[in-house]
């Protein structure tokens, strides 16, 4: 009968060593809101589960050079209560707070959401839009990569054996910059994104966009960075032509599947809609 090993190390070095030396399948448990569901349903039977919540440095949000370092086990609820983070990157915080119910919010984490590698992960397009990076610890020390380089396919990541993401780093917020994340679900809560869109823009003093990033979730095997959509915004004040170009670029980037949550046709159309709506919020926040 199935009986996995369970470890709860107190340092990153110890956790990395456990993961590196594991035989068979090893999984990291941060909040566990995806992992426990997978265990219960029997789709996943890891040989080793490494709980990272006892590692103190993974439980904190710290400021670093004007930006933020969010530990791997910080919950969505904790992120939502962090005044500075919520003020600087409201889109990122709103995205992580969309994950699950109030109870789930007490456990769900950015890093878990990222490493579960679902294309529908709510916080990931928001993180990508603001240019967040992932800090990865492994047997050969630490490395830092853009968030979009972590997931490689549904359920798969670029992490090597023994590696784990220990933190997400958000850059310092430039002046006149705003971010936003929107997702579409058929209900208002308790659901998984049919489409998600994260947008971040920086404006000049006249309100014209000087830099933008657009990211789409649930429309391809991994969360997309849509450079053409960003380009449609740069140089504009979000006029109708820019919105139309953004919509078209977002739709063009979609490579969705039809499944129980939405058809190819529907997902593609809604990606354009959400990109426009998220851009409008991001512009408003940047100008405020």
């Amino acid at each position, binding site marked *: *009968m*199935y009986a996995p090993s369970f470890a709860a190390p107190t340092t990153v070095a110890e956790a990395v060593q456990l993961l590196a030396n594991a035989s068979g399948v090893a999984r990291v448990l941060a909040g566990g809101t995806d992992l426990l569901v997978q265990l219960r349903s029997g789709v996943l039977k890891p040989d080793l589960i490494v709980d990272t919540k006892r590692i103190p440095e993974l439980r904190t949000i710290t400021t670093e050079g004007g930006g933020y370092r969010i530990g791997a086990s910080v919950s969505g609820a904790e992120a939502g209560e962090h005044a500075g983070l919520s003020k600087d990157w409201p889109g990122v915080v709103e995205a992580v707070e969309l994950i699950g119910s109030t109870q789930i919010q007490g456990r769900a984490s950015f890093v878990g959401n990222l490493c579960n590698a679902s294309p529908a992960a709510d916080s990931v397009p928001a993180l990508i839009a603001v240019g967040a990076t992932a800090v990865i610890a492994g047997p050969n020390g630490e490395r830092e990569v853009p968030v979009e380089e972590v997931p490689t396919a549904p359920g798969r990541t670029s992490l090597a054996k023994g590696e784990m993401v220990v933190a997400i780093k958000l850059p310092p917020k430039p002046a006149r910059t705003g971010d936003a994340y929107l997702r*579409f679900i*058929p*209900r*208002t*809560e*308790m*659901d*998984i994104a*049919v489409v998600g869109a994260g947008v971040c823009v920086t404006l000049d003093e006249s309100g014209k966009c000087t830099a933008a990033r657009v990211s789409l979730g649930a429309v391809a095997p991994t969360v997309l960075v849509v450079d053409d959509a960003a380009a449609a915004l740069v140089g504009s004040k979000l006029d109708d032509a820019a919105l139309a170009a953004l919509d078209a670029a977002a739709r063009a980037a979609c490579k969705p599947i039809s499944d*129980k*949550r*939405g*058809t190819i*046709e*529907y997902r593609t*159309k*809604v990606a354009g*809609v959400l990109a426009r709506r998220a851009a409008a919020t991001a512009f408003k926040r940047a100008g405020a």
Partner: protein
Amino acid sequence: MAPDGTPALKVVGTRPIRPDGVDKVTGRAQFGADFQLPGQLVGKVLRSPHAHARIRSIDISKAEAVPGVKAVMTAADMPEITSEEAFVGEGPADFKDMSGNTMARDKALYDGHAVAAVAATSAAAADAALAAIVVDYEVLPHVIEVEDAMVEGAPILHDDMFTSGVDPKPTKPSNVAKRMVFQLGDVDAAFEKADIVIERKYKTAPVHQGYIEPHACVAQYAADGQVQIYCSSQGQFMVRAYVAKLLGIDISEIRVTPLEIGGGFGGKTLVYLEPLAVVLSRKSGRPVKMAMTREEVFRGSGPTSGGTVWVKIGAKRDGTIIAGDAVLKFQAGAYAGSPVGPGCMTAFAVYDLQDVRITGYDVVTNRPKVAAYRAPGAPISNFGIESAVDELARELGMDPVELRLKNAAKKGTKAAYGPTFGDIGCVETLEAVKNHPNYQASLGPNQGRGVASGFWFNIGGESSATVNINEDGTAVVATGNPDIGGSRASMAMMAAEVLGIEVERVRPIVADTSSVGYCFLTGGSRVTFATGMAVVEASKSVVNELKARAAKIWDIPVEAVEWQDGEAVPAGSNAGDFEPLSLEDIAAKSGRTGGPIASTSSLNAQGAGPGFGTHVVDVEVDRETGHVKVLRYLATQDAGRAIHPSYVEGQIQGGAVQGIGWALNEEYIYDDKGRLENPGFLDYRIPVASDLPMIDTVVVEVPNPRHPYGARGVGEVPIVPPMAAMANAIQDAIGIRLTELPMSPPKVRKAVDEQAAAEE
């Protein structure tokens, strides 16, 4: 005295705290999965992964060898049942089919159909045993959609099914179990006289009741053959009867103890696990506990039918509807017995029509066998009829409430299914809508308003109640109906009203099958009406006995004693001769006046008053995403007399919310192999609280003359109108008629795009 001359009521119509409330909010109440017996085993079910497959063989030898496994069973451990119509339940059923649905015998007929079960000392051992059972399947072609199942050449589920109700009798087997026709007058001639004819076809998806508590039971088969079952269901007597029949056990050998029920809505009016748990207990000699997972609930238990509804209505230019014709095709799931009969009978029941015809087809498909769901069948036909009536109102340029008022069924209207209505409140519910501020609220862009009315028969039936007066003058009321919608409170209130005491002094209990007289199940909106009637009757005979005891104490004739406000009072020539005797006084002296005071009433209640309701909903449609937001919702309903108004309102609100889910998002999604892809609440989307506004209610009261306090059933009517009301509101908002449920965001967006393309 009340204005109508009846005595003023002191308890009925008030809103006391429910007697089961504290247990439920503190978590102490024992629901199906909470119950335990010492030494119990864990029972689990192996289910077919195929939509349609012949079972060539089942090898259980490896499973039996798994350490900790105490019993393994298949259909071979159950008696073969000959075809016989079930005598209890809420829809047509056949015991042979019920047996087959509980455990597949020769063929698995749907993804999730039970094929074997095990009992083991742990869940892990039971899982290991399930994995070790080898079933040799011959996978057969399958059919999911109702109209696909009706075509020539469709995969046939049952070789022995020949369509009944057609002439001549068919010689070839078919998936159509039955055809039925209900008619009044000459429909074809009536259409000739119509100025306007609306004709359209509508489609609904099968939907699950979505009760929060999965099915669960514990069964113990003792060495002497006595069977104890503890389970959550809509009727302990129903469980007893079905288990007895399916396993060939005498009813006297079975005692069923009802546990709290966490929602049923019709879905717990039959057995799934109980017979299996009894067999496993018999084989293992240990108590066996079984509980479904949510996935099993979706794959293995019955939703209600999906169906197609073709409607044709004819009207005069002044809005008089003169002809109605409908064809309903309902899928029943794997065995015959969809609620197409009540679907037909309720179809045009809100209208006063002389010429009307409804044709129904009961069709089997490779889906779970349907179970009752609130007003079984009525919401499906109502979606078609009330959508078409809305189209008629638009065509005529008439207000939809005025059109309905002009044609509403009233006292004396003969319904297509036979009876002539007595006192009914259809018109009153429409007037209540007209007079409500929601109906005047202004609407913005992409917002719209929809109206629909609905009907349900309500039923009476067999019920028993026992009232025991305790030695301190308090009372216990025992009935045999699981309390789903606040019936303990209603029973206590009606007893308190008759006895003339505070409701807090009456303790209502739901007794096991050996402790109270027979009660038909909790369903059909019957309990407050029928079991309530038994409570009132038993309470009245207790009052008679109390008067007799007082007469004895005073040594006066019993005719000279009156019962007023919980006291015996000397009357007539003896008036004023003695101090009144309270219930407490008489109870305290009962040992000296003839012994304990108690009474039982068993009856078959007739005259359940039909129920009518009208709903009006305002929605806002996001044209770009197809999302429909419910802005306002008003449901009006005739409750006859609301015994406990809060629970009447709660029933109305709950029904409306389930209907909103049915309208917007709920559906079973199958892959091309006929396997259910969304067996969970994540992708089977019932509404969550944040999806909904407050559901406003207006309870109108047209008393039912056949109930002592005028009560009508209220639980089923409120799920009938919502789907059409929602479709009508969406039409009003964006000018598009949606004819297929659910009206989910992708479908709404597609319709918007098609409209835009058509306009270009």
